[in-house]
């Protein structure tokens, strides 16, 4: 065991863990941040993604000791109690089925929109291609990314239906 310091969602934590421990287990089991989830442990599916230095990284294959910059998890996307426009778009579009992969979908989309505020369909497909969904919510994920892109630009998307709740 050794002492590791992590800054996550604006808070600094010092923990006593094996340096080789994948970041995922530290986030989930030590810090109680369970937005990132185990999907494959191989960096193939994206369910465990977190944002480090503006990149969506699979935390399942990232040793905790290798993390030198601040980490943002799904729980850290909302600001002052207000959801990130992507999260709101996910609700407006009713994206998830089971929802287990959606952490990775949202975190990958966040990085995409930070880099390319108005992506083309092709850019969305390419940027999101490594983030899998076994319920096949892909089409709606892509729709929600386009909606969020408009919201962020200040163009309020026109709702195509009256929603009651």
């Amino acid at each position: 065991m050794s002492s590791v310091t992590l800054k996550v969602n604006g808070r600094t934590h010092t923990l006593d863990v094996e340096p080789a421990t994948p970041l995922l287990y530290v986030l989930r089991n030590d810090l109680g941040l369970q937005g990132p989830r185990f999907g494959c442990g191989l960096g193939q599916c994206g369910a465990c993604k977190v944002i480090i230095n503006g990149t969506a990284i699979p935390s399942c294959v990232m040793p905790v000791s290798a993390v030198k910059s601040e980490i943002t998890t799904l729980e850290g996307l909302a600001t002052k109690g207000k959801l990130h426009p992507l999260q709101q778009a996910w609700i407006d579009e009713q994206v998830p089925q089971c929802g287990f992969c959606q952490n990775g979908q949202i975190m990958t989309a966040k990085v995409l929109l930070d880099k390319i505020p108005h992506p083309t369909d092709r850019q969305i497909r390419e940027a999101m291609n490594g983030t899998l969904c076994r319920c096949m919510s892909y089409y709606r994920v892509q729709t929600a990314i386009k909606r969020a892109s408009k919201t962020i630009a200040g163009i309020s998307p026109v709702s195509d239906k009256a929603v009651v709740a």
Partner: protein
Amino acid sequence: MSAGSTIPKHIEEVLATHRRGFLKSAGLLIASFGGWAPLANAEEPGPYPNPDFRQIDSWIVIHENNTATFYVGKTDPGQGTGTGFRQLMSDELDIAFDKTTCIMGSTDITVDQIGSGGSTAMERDSWPMRRVAAEARRVLLEMASVPLGVPADQLTVTDAVITSKADASKRVTYGELIAGKKFNVTLTGTNVTSVTGKAKTKSVPELKYTGQPLHRDDIPGKVDGSLKWAVDVKLPGMVHARNVKPPFACAKLTAIDESSVKSLPGFIKVMSKGNYVAVVCDREEQAIRAARQLKTTWEKPSTAPFPASEKLFDYMRATAPIAAPRAAGNADAETRNPVGGPIVVGNPDAFFSSAPKVLEAEYQIPFQGHTAFAGAHATADPSNGQMTIYSNDMKSYGMRRCVAAFLGMPEDRVRVVWMQGPQGFGRSAAEDAACEAAWIAHELGRPVRVQWMRDEETAWDAKSPAFLVKMRGALDGDGRLAAYDYRARSCDYNHLGYNEPDTVLIAQLMGARRERPAAGSASMPSDMYAIPHRKMAGEVVGLPAIWETPLRTGNLRDPNGPQPTFATESFIDEMAAAAKTDPLEFRLNLIKGVVNDDGGFRRARSIAVLKAAGEAFGWDARPSPKRRDTGDILKGRGAAYSFRGQTVVAQIAEVEVNRKTGHVWAKRLVCAHDCGLVINPESLRRTIECGTLHGLSRALHEEVQFNTEKVTSLDWVSHPTLRHADIPERIDVVLVNGDPNPKRPDLPPYGAGEATLKPMLAAIGNAIYDATGVRIRRVPFRDDRVLAALKAAGV
């Protein structure tokens, strides 16, 4: 009112109040909507008897602040059924939808409605909920008549407030009448499905929330990270276990070298019985490392457990079918057609022998896996001599019985708390993981969390059976399909039921054996066309290895539906091409002649659905194949149609086939769908979109591969699935709701989800044929397979 991003505060308060009630009495760990309160010590140790389905109080609790909590024995694998139940029950109870919440699938607090499966949520299991809610409303009106001094039939109710029709100042709320008290009303009915009170349910026009696109209540917590899933459960003193799977099928464990892991950090114990091995450690990553590092020695079986995947269909062709019928008492019998036949109509043999031209074709569908997203997982808590399982398995009640039987515990000392999890498409490995967690927890005497790794899940989960289907057909002199012969052979001898204590993987590995496994089936296709002479038969073949094999079959979303439908709906296209007739028109002509299905009920809806799909797509009537494009990208379109129960589905795909690479892209998809009464059109559209794409994934990518000793599909590279890059530019979902017959406006809901899986494989194959003129009778249509077929045909 617009949907908020969080659960309304008053609902959260209701839940919190209610949770405290549970926590006191049952020690329940509550895990939804951001609330999270693991209990160190359950104050009451159980037992956990079944809630009585004949009591209104088991289904509905009304609170002081005039809100309601519904308790239903279903689980929601992600299609939004929980919100749908709230819509229906709010309507019947006459309470505002946003003043209600719904708790699902935990065996000690919700009645046993099995859980989910077979797309029965709305079709079958919403009815008792509706009847109970209607009865609760009736009882409340009767109760109100006393303090108000007004006969019940002179009272009316809006949003849980009862008023006198004559004098609106005479009012009382549901909460004032019943909160803190019990209904104590006994319902009638022999079982949970037939349970009823005296009240009648409302007619469709009286339903206010039903039919509205209300937002699902589980989605906010799924996108802000606050929802707690089965995989998130943490209990005091909990340890982590990981399995060490046999390195090949039917392997016999001969030695474990515990010294290989003893000095690893966090090591607690190696658990083993028979051929089952797991390692337990303090921390999760420690258990993963130790399970990988544990040295074990295994003996190979004397004969190969199965042929290699590239020889599978040769094997299936050459192997004698199993004579035994499917075992009686299979819990899932209702979702699968029997092995059968032959079903014979007319005189097919005579027609074939005299027909001028007989078309024959053989279709092949490999094993396809569940490959749920996370590894299968469960947490088991043996505190107080009970056993509590936290699981996402869709059939929590069956799991309770299974765990009790497997551990030899009385059922009322076991409970299963259902929580959200990845997928729930049938007989997943969730129940295998639950029995493993339960056994280890039972042995160790402390809470244990088990999760399968990716390679375990992909290799060892239950598989959808491989099918080999032989089709024959002949046209009459007018170009109509006059004779048709369907012969299916499925590789499905060891078909797993749900939650069987002697067939879950740990039981098999520990040596449990049934005298004979429950044979699966080679389903019949949807019998939907008027063909004067036809014969349909199904038979089952087995693999040499039956037990302790990763090639174990089980129900996967629309069990044994996509396979027969790939064959039959491709073959119908082949016959249409032979008749030089437009394939949609060819189908419509065959359906128009159907007379024996419920007085034409399904026929009328089938015609409407096929036409709706064609209209939405902009279908130009012409025979397939089309004149081939000259560039590298060959474009075409294909249709397929099917039904499941009373749900009718037609799908049309427009594809682009790359002549140089063999890559197939479905550029556009249309799905026209009629499942009767629509409870929530937005949830339904999402379910259809995703189900249709699941069909596309099975058409393009999914195939379990293996050599003669083990499954070699182990991850997302060796067992690919659909990805973002595969997604069509456009998907149109057409809800062809209701009944074209105006005499039946009050159509009930039918199962929606699984029906969408059936036609897509054939729709893609038909579109590839339309584009290229090449018929590929083997899924998945992976690049290399398509390219080889194009080359062989000189395209």
